């Protein structure tokens, strides 16, 4: 039986993990490979690296991070951030990433999803959607730049279009829930779940183990992603997974 996935997300800037990861047990908590190894040992089902480097050099460093991770670990991982072209995708996939995640590049040029899916297969094209509820529109709208820029694009419609173009998975982040630690945005996840048939990774709002249970069971997400609660040790991947297992969720 296919299991639900728990995915820690690492923000990487110029080859270093940022957002103040606190692990006394690690020699170098800023080293993405060391942190990835730690999460692997904790039972993480997958990892997401989000490259937030602003420079060309920073992004080149990301390729090394990917290569070292693939050389060290045998679990799947996705790389997002700064991937704009087929060439960018190819570099990351060749370096050992299993999937690439497209966000603003896909919004600017949706054909990139189609091209990526054709060359590399849908299974390695993830489309990341940052959505926020809009009272004015009475639906969720797509945002970019960490929730600062509102686009004139409805999130659910964009999810459908992305899948039609060949996205093999969606990484859906609720900008309303993100950082609040009050739980995932179930309504958003359900609204997208109803319209697409690819796996969905829910993101934004994880505060405790029960939040994972709710989004995986009640909103039927296939995977749930979190960053700070794992990094700041508010809970651990191990704890979340054993909680879910006890509740009868199919977990590795």
């Amino acid at each position, binding site marked *: *039986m*296919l*299991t*639900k*996935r728990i995915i820690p997300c690492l923000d990487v800037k110029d080859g270093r993990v940022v957002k103040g990861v606190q692990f006394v047990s690690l020699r170098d908590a800023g080293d993405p490979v060391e942190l990835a190894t730690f999460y*692997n040992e904790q039972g993480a*089902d997958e990892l997401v690296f989000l490259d937030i480097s602003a420079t060309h050099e920073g992004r080149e460093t990301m390729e090394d991070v990917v*290569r070292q991770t*693939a*050389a060290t670990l*045998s*679990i*799947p991982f996705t790389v997002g951030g700064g991937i704009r072209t087929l060439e960018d995708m190819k570099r990351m*996939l*060749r*370096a*050992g*990433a*299993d999937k690439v995640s497209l966000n603003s590049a896909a919004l600017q040029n949706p054909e990139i999803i189609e091209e990526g899916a*054709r*060359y*590399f*297969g*849908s*299974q*390695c094209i993830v489309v990341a959607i940052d959505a926020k509820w809009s009272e004015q529109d009475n639906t969720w709208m797509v945002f970019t730049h960490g929730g600062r820029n509102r686009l004139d694009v409805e999130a659910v419609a964009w999810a459908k279009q992305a899948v039609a173009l060949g996205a*093999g*998975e969606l990484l859906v982040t609720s900008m309303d829930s993100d950082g609040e630690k009050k739980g995932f945005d179930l309504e958003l996840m359900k609204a997208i779940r109803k319209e697409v*048939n*690819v*796996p969905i990774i829910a993101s934004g709002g994880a505060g405790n183990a029960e939040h994972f249970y709710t989004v995986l069971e009640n909103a039927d997400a*296939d*995977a749930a992603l979190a960053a700070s609660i794992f990094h700041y040790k508010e809970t651990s991947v191990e704890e979340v997974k054993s909680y879910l297992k006890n509740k009868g969720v199919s977990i*590795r």
Partner: protein
Amino acid sequence: MKVGIVDYGMGNLFSVEQAVKRLGYEVIVSSEIEQLKQADAFILPGVGAFADAIGCLEKTGLNHFVYEIAEQQKPLLGICLGMQLLFEDSEENGFFKGLGIFKGTIRRFDDEKVRVPHMGWNNLTFTPNWQEPKELVDYYVYFVHSYYGVDLAPEQLVAYAEYEGIRVPGIVQKGNVTGMQFHPEKSGTCGMTLLKNWLQQVEGETQS
């Protein structure tokens, strides 16, 4: 023992190469038949579309090389799309002939019935056709695919995973040729154990 990874231009070879190296084996990654011939065992990887992959194999002449390996009873492991290529044919984007080493067809999961791709960790059940490795501590392996093998020869099926009532072939074997639908190189302890087991088995055979 040297392991040759057949590079026909499709997919992520780096992770497979690194996994085999971590297990202590020498690796030759090449698209050149002469270079590959120095290897004792072979891995046919692959990510992408069936037709593109068959096209690449034919264009490079590596399809003949793969047949040759199988005929000479040299060990061959197809992974993911690399396994699918070893079946008779595929219905991915049309109808395409495969290499025909395994009996069966590659067909798309029914979008109406299940979520496609079949993506994530699923557990393997072994059939009586194979002695499962004793050192396995769990059976979870990482799958990521939208097409799967149907109409197999029952005696060629070694292990399968259940996906919403569908039996997804996980490991197939015929003589010296093995196929794994999941990615052993991305499947944690279980995947590495299965890969190690295959390598040790073929190492034993190449030495005897």
